[in-house]
């Protein structure tokens, strides 16, 4: 009787966790890395769109403003352009940023979306026709732009990127993060703008092709040195398929 009741009532108090994919930790870091690059491209895109508007014929300015900045007004004060409703300040150097040699500065006084930096500053330098280098102390990316034809998005360009950088993966309101991710784009990555939400002016850049390697370290544990390799197999607005190799184990994600 005793054994029977023990068998009957010895029980599962709590179901176990869902079994994660073997590369899920790597996928988490890749998502944050692509978002980090996307944020840098978004900041660049604002500067490039501003320049397109500044250099547009007077008769076309309203048309460009409606297309590129549907929710903001452009305001100029003490050497910087501000988009109303956004914590962004763009500092031109007197030359069009589409002119080789021009160097502009972009400052976000608050996070763009959800990122680790509470304040963000970067330089945009035109290196060639539709080619720029964007950089700050944490990254340096060479990008090539291709104009976006579709008026469905407020983005100015599709970007092909190469370069490297590092960042602290995390959310801006969590200062206790201690991981560092160092990424290197090993095969040029193409980032396409995708609108999110119902407002076409809100967009972010998502990778549709290319390869990236990431090293993860922990500031409090020198033994941590995890390797992540990402290869984008295919990309479209509805589906991005990519392969992640995390510490030697490879899985496909979409």
């Amino acid at each position, binding site marked *: 009787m*005793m054994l029977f009741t023990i068998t009957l009532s010895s029980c599962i108090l709590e179901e176990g966790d869902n079994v994660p994919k073997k590369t899920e930790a790597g996928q988490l870091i890749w998502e944050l890395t692509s978002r980090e690059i996307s944020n840098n491209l978004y900041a660049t895109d604002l500067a490039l769109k501003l320049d397109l508007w500044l250099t547009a014929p007077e008769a076309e300015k309203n048309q460009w403003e409606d297309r590129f900045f549907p929710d903001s007004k452009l305001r100029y004060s003490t050497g910087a352009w501000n988009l109303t409703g956004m914590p962004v300040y763009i500092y031109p150097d007197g030359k069009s940023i589409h002119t080789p040699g021009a160097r502009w500065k972009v400052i976000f006084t608050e996070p763009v979306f959800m990122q680790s930096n509470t304040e963000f500053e970067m330089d945009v330098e035109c290196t060639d026709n539709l080619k720029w280098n964007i950089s700050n102390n944490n990254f340096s990316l060479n990008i090539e732009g291709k104009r976006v034809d579709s008026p469905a998005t407020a983005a100015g360009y599709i970007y092909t990127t190469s370069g490297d950088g590092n960042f602290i993966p995390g959310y801006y309101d969590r200062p206790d993060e201690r991981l560092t991710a160092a990424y290197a784009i090993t095969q040029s990555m193409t980032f396409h703008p995708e609108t999110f939400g119902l407002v076409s002016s809100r967009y972010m850049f998502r990778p549709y092709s290319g390869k990236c390697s990431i090293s993860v370290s922990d500031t409090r544990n020198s033994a941590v040195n995890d390797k992540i390799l990402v290869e984008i197999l295919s990309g479209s607005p509805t589906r991005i398929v990519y392969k992640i190799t995390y510490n030697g184990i490879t899985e496909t994600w979409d």
Partner: protein
Amino acid sequence: MLALSVTMFAELANGQVRYWNSSRGKQMPEAEVRFSHGLLPLTYDFELLEWNWDFQPASVTDQYYNLQTYRGNLYSTGALSMGHSIKVAKWLEMGATLSYAGSFRNIYSSSTNKVIDRETSRSFFFTPTMRFAWFNREWVRMYSSIGLGVGMMISHPYDRVRGEAAEPYIEWGPSVQLTGFGISVGKRFFWFSEVQTIGTLGLFTMGFGFRVVPDKRRWQR
């Protein structure tokens, strides 16, 4: 351990009878020993006590390390108890119960799906108990009871963020058992079950016991 406990409690009851007879020259009151198993005992790792009232999402650091392992089902042994009591009045028994409740879960590596560690907790309770018999027949008794005592839990957790076993710790606390309805069927050897219960012995308890009834007339006073 179970055999040892059975022997110990049986000897205790017999010893009481012998001592009572020899020292006072009259029959001792009825005594009994019980062995039971309770479902879902309350222990100090009860989820409500561990509830995280911080609604912030976990940091990326914590998420990253947590994804490298995952936890299996949490199993419980239930509460294995043994008790001894003496009938001090027709309607009242007084005694004490010793209980053990264990729980464990495996920790698996996400990359290999192999067990890399195990979290365990072992709880021990000592619960003096008063049992009120409100239906009293020779073969069937129905009762309610209340118990209050002390307990301790030895816990061996696993720190998923650090990726290693965390420091074990011991927690002390009260042991409380409230039983709304209990029924026992039998005379010297009896079966019993308790429902409408809550506490360290479990939400639903079932077991058996031995009763020493030296003097039936005394039992009926």
